């Protein structure tokens, strides 16, 4: 068997570095797979394609974390339009104004230093 050339996380982060929210797609299951893995949990197959999300989604669940020190911040679960769910936060809006059902759009957050980029979301402007 060929050794895996890169871990699923490495590939995911490389896409994020390039500004893409990547996820896997299992052709045999005809379904998205997220978080990224080495095999499809539905079929057991290692045939997984990487795809880039269009970057739009809907808030599925939301909370405001109140740290002992520092300002409250949002943590949310986002249903991405391509059919997978992920943890993230919604920015550019007060944390307690994030609502279930709110349409949101992906952008890359770059914390800098040793920390890898991470995907965050902002409200989609009303059409």
């Amino acid at each position, binding site marked *: 068997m060929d050794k895996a050339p890169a871990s699923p*996380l490495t590939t995911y*982060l490389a896409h994020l570095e390039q500004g893409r929210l990547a996820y896997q797609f299992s052709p045999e299951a005809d379904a998205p797979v997220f*978080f990224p893995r080495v095999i499809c949990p539905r079929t057991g197959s290692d045939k997984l394609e990487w795809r880039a999300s269009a970057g739009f989604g809907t808030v*599925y*669940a*939301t*909370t*405001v*974390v*109140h*740290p002992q020190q520092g300002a*409250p*911040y949002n*943590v*949310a*679960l986002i249903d991405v339009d391509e059919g997978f*769910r*992920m*943890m*993230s*936060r919604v920015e550019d809006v007060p944390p*307690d104004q994030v609502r*279930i*059902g709110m349409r949101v759009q992906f952008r890359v957050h770059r*914390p800098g230093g040793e*920390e*890898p980029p*991470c995907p965050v979301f902002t409200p989609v402007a009303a059409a």
Partner: protein
Amino acid sequence: MSGVHARGGRVMPGLQRGGAAIVGVAESDIGAVADLMSPIDLMAQGVQRALADSGLGLRDVDGLFCATTQSRTSAMSLVEYLGLPNAYTDSTIVGGSSFEIHVAHALAAITAGMCSVAVIAYGSTQRTVGRRAASVREYNPYETPFKPFLPASAYALAASRHMHQFGTTREQLAEVAVAARQWALLNPAAWEKKPLTVADVIAARPVSDPFTVRDCCLVTDGGGAVIMTSVERAKTLRKPPIYVLGCGQSITHATISFMPDLTVTGAVESGRQAYATARMGPQDIDIAELYDAFTLNTIMFLEDLGFCAKGEGGPFISGGRIAPGGALPVNTNGGGLSYCHPGMYGLFLLIEAVRQLRGEGGQRQVAGCETAIVHGNGGVFSAQSTVILGTQATL
């Protein structure tokens, strides 16, 4: 019929209605324990006290089931500590429901002849050493960057869904904490000693919306043990045997991001398995001991275990229904919210159910208590395990 659940799959080979009994239960020291006590010290203290409760001795024990976040190989440590080199061991760890799963595993081991006297033990010094030191959280590249305050934020996300979908109110969540406190005030061993109101819960320090600190389980030390043996041997011991009538488990996810539906837990499946084996339904249950890590849990588990319809848990618990004197006694020791919560709480649910079924509940005793449902929860609504217990009259 035993070992078969509604979807046709096997629950667990050897799992049999009333196939083994709980014959001893005890807490170790709980609350804030003496300096430099170890989790294994607390397990051993629980073992000694539970054996005394049963009338058995340490040399009778030939099966050890245990888990703690503070020892990577807790069964090995407990074998060494107790001097039981030939014991059958199982240290399955799936969070707070590990001990309900241990009951199922011990039942299977006893009926398969792998051991004859099984000890299920727990110990934690999380209050003394601090929550971070007691339970080191693994880095998850898909969650940790967003700094959820775990586990509270995971359950808070579920609460946001439950409130959105079903109209569950902030006051209903708070009422769960108030009911738990009312039970705790009847339990001399409980950590919390003062009355609590709905307004107190809502006005407390916010943690992760909608939860305040009063929606969250306590942070205490503690441990204990449960002794199980065969039906034949159980009948020869000090206390009336409490029979294991049914067990079930379902592990649906590990992280909240990948919980299939935040308003439905694996308790639906674990409960179905346990009810099928016990040949009972929720209408047959006298008391419910449900893992209340957060106020939402009690509401969701009452729904998922069939005490009310999905989404109706909020109205169901309101008006004191689950408080002392209510129609359905729930968490009769004060629960993880007000009695004791040393990191993983599942063992304490079993201890309280057995005491109620024996009539040893003192001031908080529920009259005519013959059946109990014990529901353990591990992780972030991840690992669900249900055990149904009953007196001799239910066999």
